[in-house]
């Protein structure tokens, strides 16, 4: 059960639970099953779309993020960050996707190319439940580095 966006940059100021039909209606997101779990805004101006995965499946998570972001951007909303939060990596998908330990960016294993959802500058990030606090700190640290650059 989705219980709010991961507090990557503190508690979100604005939050939509995309599993709630009323919130989806507000944002104009279709009820086609291909939607992410949350959309929220943090004090540092980040607009984040988050997908949580009970079962391992990065490809399906990316598909849900892609579909949600496309609809949000089409209705004039902002998205600056996309995150997949899952239990841990699956052995099989780890051969296809790699996750950078520091930036948490997910890459296509065979090309080392970062995966980006069309319309979002920042690459897709993956954080794991079993190392959540550290992964959140990595995301924050990484953001400070890019802000200072």
């Amino acid at each position, binding site marked *: *059960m*989705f219980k709010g966006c991961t507090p990557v940059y503190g508690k979100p100021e604005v939050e939509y639970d995309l*599993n709630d039909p009323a919130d989806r209606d507000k944002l104009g997101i279709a009820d*086609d*099953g*291909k939607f992410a779990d949350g959309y929220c805004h943090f004090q540092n101006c980040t607009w984040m779309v988050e997908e949580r*995965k*009970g*079962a*391992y*499946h990065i*490809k*399906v998570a*990316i*598909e*849900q*993020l*892609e579909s949600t972001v496309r609809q949000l951007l089409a209705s004039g909303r902002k998205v600056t960050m996309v995150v997949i939060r899952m239990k841990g990596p*699956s*052995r*099989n*998908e780890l*051969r*296809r996707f790699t996750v950078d330990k520091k930036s948490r960016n997910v890459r*296509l294993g065979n*090309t080392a*190319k970062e*995966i*980006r*959802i*069309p319309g979002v500058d920042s690459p*897709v990030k993956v954080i794991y439940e079993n190392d959540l606090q550290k992964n959140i700190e990595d995301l924050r640290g990484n953001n400070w580095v890019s802000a200072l650059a």
Partner: protein
Amino acid sequence: MGLSISLENRPNISPKDALEAKLKVAFQVLEFQRKYFIPKGIDTWSIAPLESLGGKVLDRFPRDSDLDSLRSRAELSINAAPWDSDILGFTFPGDWILGSTKLTGYLTLHNKEWRSTYGDIESNIYPTTEFSDLLDVVRTNDKTKEHLVHDFLKDFPNLVDKETSKINRIYFGLGTPSRIDVDSLVGAYYSTEKDFIRDCLSTVKEVEGKPVKDSFDPYRETFIVNGLKQVPHFEEYLDELFEKHTIKKDVTGSVALFGSDKDSFRQLFDEISREILKPIAEELPNKDIILGKIRDAIVEKTTKQSRLDKPSDDS
């Protein structure tokens, strides 16, 4: 992943013929699942199934559940660019209707590049807050479980036209089950029992890490698997393990395995790993020992040779 099907590679076949044969199997899956999965169109893509992964949607035909018209649309896409058959893939979005539960899902036919991760044919739901995987829903109803898991694994491989395609493996499992995830399966079909042992071997190398991997690496999997099959009573021992871990085995030349409990395969794999594969890994001369022997043999030989070649003081 729910369901993942891998077909045998056929040598000397054109990419177009290979894709058409694979498409035929995909439609047979759709026929088999018809009572439960209603396709609502077909997307033809190239390179990868998603734009974010470098893919491109070539055609989107969103409105038909009639299998004949979907088939014609797919054939049209193949014939439009037969030289691209290696990179083409298809996704059939649709609705799973399982009892009173209706969920959005898909069946995807992967291309040559993506089959190594998700199999040739993959089918599942889009997760909801209630169900994270097709298997979660199937488990809630004995009748659907019987048809979609048990009957599918037992009967489907025999429905496929062996002239054009042969099923190699079918996995039912949570997430993205594969040959290195035996411990996460709930059901599986193998064209031979050796393939099941081979998958256990691939999984143990991943699970146990470097020491076990280094022990098995110098040896071909076929060599180890054939060695095990030659051990007297090995098959009986394996059958006892299936029974002990409540895994039902159906043999019709091939093997279909069904776990009664969520953890049946995990427990079976743990025991095979602990009792068979890890002891073998400990006994086998590993990579370093073999390399040491190679080095010693050559050093000894070259040292002897240099002694013989060296002119003596008397000459």
